[in-house]
């Protein structure tokens, strides 16, 4: 290499520094090992352990027994698991598109310099930082059939009182609505950040070419935001398929099992009825589904990016 000539001009101290840089393996490992041990120890080990568990009968206390694929076979036939899957799919199919579309609409509305815009943005976003437990407790009160403000308002308007969370026909949809209240703000801020990256030259050019507001939105803004949209679809879908906290706090899967979602099913089987092997099989089924959704959207994202 050309360094034979170069060494003459190099400060001798820097050569020592280079030599030092080569022998840094120990420092590198010392810096990363606490993170590596904790992160890998609490993910790789449990993932493999879960796989073993899913082939066993285990009550978290006594020694487990190997049963092969029996848990998975039972899962397929279990009507409770089937309805947990369908509740989760209904919740996801409503929550994901609604939150992403509303997020885009609100972000576009908030993407302008007018008075109070900072306040509007804050208010739209603030429910997102409220924990699911706090949301659940708050809405259990708001929607309490007897003492809640919702029925009180309906009464004032002369409308009939509703059962809300005690009505099997309403509970799941109310959970979607509460999640939209808190989760749309996330889509809004991600879209707002994305909108900063939409080239104003392109928008200007489209305007000059005679595009109206809708034309600019359809042909300039939306294509430019496509990567953001795909990310949000992925992120929101993964979150929706794993909904648990809000269900636990508000309905505990009821009434009549109408809000039992997959993770609630998994939690119940592991820590309430102590059938951990069965629960692990359900968890693995969900994880594989999540992986498929994630991989499909990643492939789609690459294709969009390549265009």
């Amino acid at each position, binding site marked *: 290499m050309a360094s034979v000539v170069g060494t003459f001009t190099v400060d001798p101290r820097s050569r020592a520094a280079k030599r030092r840089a080569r022998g840094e393996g120990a420092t590198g490992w010392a810096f990363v090992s606490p993170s590596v041990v904790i*992160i890998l120890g609490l993910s790789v080990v449990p993932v493999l352990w879960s796989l073993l568990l899913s082939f066993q009968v285990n009550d978290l206390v006594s020694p487990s027994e190997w049963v092969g694929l029996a848990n998975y076979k039972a899962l397929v036939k279990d009507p409770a698991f089937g309805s947990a899957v369908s509740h989760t799919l209904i919740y996801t199919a409503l929550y994901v598109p609604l939150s992403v579309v509303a997020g885009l609409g609100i972000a576009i509305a908030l993407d302008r310099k007018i008075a109070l815009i900072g306040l509007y943005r804050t208010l739209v976003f*603030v429910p997102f930082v409220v924990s699911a437990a706090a949301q659940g407790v708050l809405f259990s*009160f708001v929607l*309490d059939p007897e003492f809640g403000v919702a029925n009180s308002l309906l009464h004032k308007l002369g409308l009939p009182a509703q059962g809300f969370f005690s009505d099997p026909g309403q509970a799941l949809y109310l959970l979607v609505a509460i999640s939209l209240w808190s989760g749309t703000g996330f889509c809004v801020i991600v879209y707002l950040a994305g909108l900063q990256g939409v080239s104003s030259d392109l928008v200007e050019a489209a305007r000059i070419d005679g595009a109206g507001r809708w034309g600019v939105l359809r042909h300039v803004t939306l294509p430019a935001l496509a990567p953001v949209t795909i990310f949000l679809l992925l992120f929101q879908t993964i979150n929706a398929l*794993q909904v648990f906290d809000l269900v636990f706090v508000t309905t505990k899967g009821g009434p009549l099992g109408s809000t039992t979602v997959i993770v609630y099913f998994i939690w119940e089987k592991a820590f309430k009825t102590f059938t951990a092997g069965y629960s692990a099989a359900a968890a*693995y089924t969900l*994880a594989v589904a999540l992986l498929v959704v994630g991989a499909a959207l990643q492939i789609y994202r690459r294709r969009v990016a390549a265009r």
Partner: protein
Amino acid sequence: MKRLPFSGWHLVLAPLALLFALPLVWLLVSSVMSNAEINRFPPALWPQGIKLDGYRYVLGNALFPRWFLNSFIVSAVAVTANLVLGTLGGYAFARIRFAGSKIVLGLMLATMVIPFQLTMIPTFLVMKQLGLIDTLGALIVPSLVTPLSVFLFRQFFVSLPRELEEAAWIDGCGRLRILVSIVLPLARPALSTVAVLTFLATWNDLTWPLIAINSDSTYTLQLGLTTFQGQHHTQWSAVMAGNVITVLPVLLGFLLAQKAFIRSLASTGLKG
């Protein structure tokens, strides 16, 4: 401030913002109502005066102060540990060449896609083996460092110009010295992002405390609030006062450091 002209968008945005704010306004209002006002039919929509009975009950009779302390300890330790371990790991992955670093980093990032419910039963069994179940340790250990923290620090350090560190390196400074005295003072955006994300995740978590904690004196606020609601569902003003106490630290943090919160959360979106 310059006055901006009135825009028709206010007619859309003001009601919309109100819709998002209203449940939280109601949370605050109902926490200062008397039980008499709440328990009559139809319930009052606005309090006659401010009654602090709910707060008095929650702070005096219940375990709320203890739960607040527990949540605070878990979050504070988790944030500190993520900052320390995250900067160490992130710096090493960004700057130090060592055998196996690429494989280990790849493996750590891959663990981000593992859903929590897949690891929760074995994590419970591991914590049981360690004798940590029903202690704050069971909540702290799994949240000491996340792959996201390490990754965010690594990305930030990679973006810093190397020249800043080279002079110190040539003068014989060790890596730790360089990290602490040269790199960290420049890393405020990354430090605040990781602090915000870690705080939100640990303060707001319910699932893991629900699994790992049994005794009410070890509850976190989220778990305590949930249980408290189940036991006191006729004392709504006390429940709402407890709810305000649970939400307040996050809301205050958000209002005080709104830019950092929004940048942190938007960055997870745009870089993810």
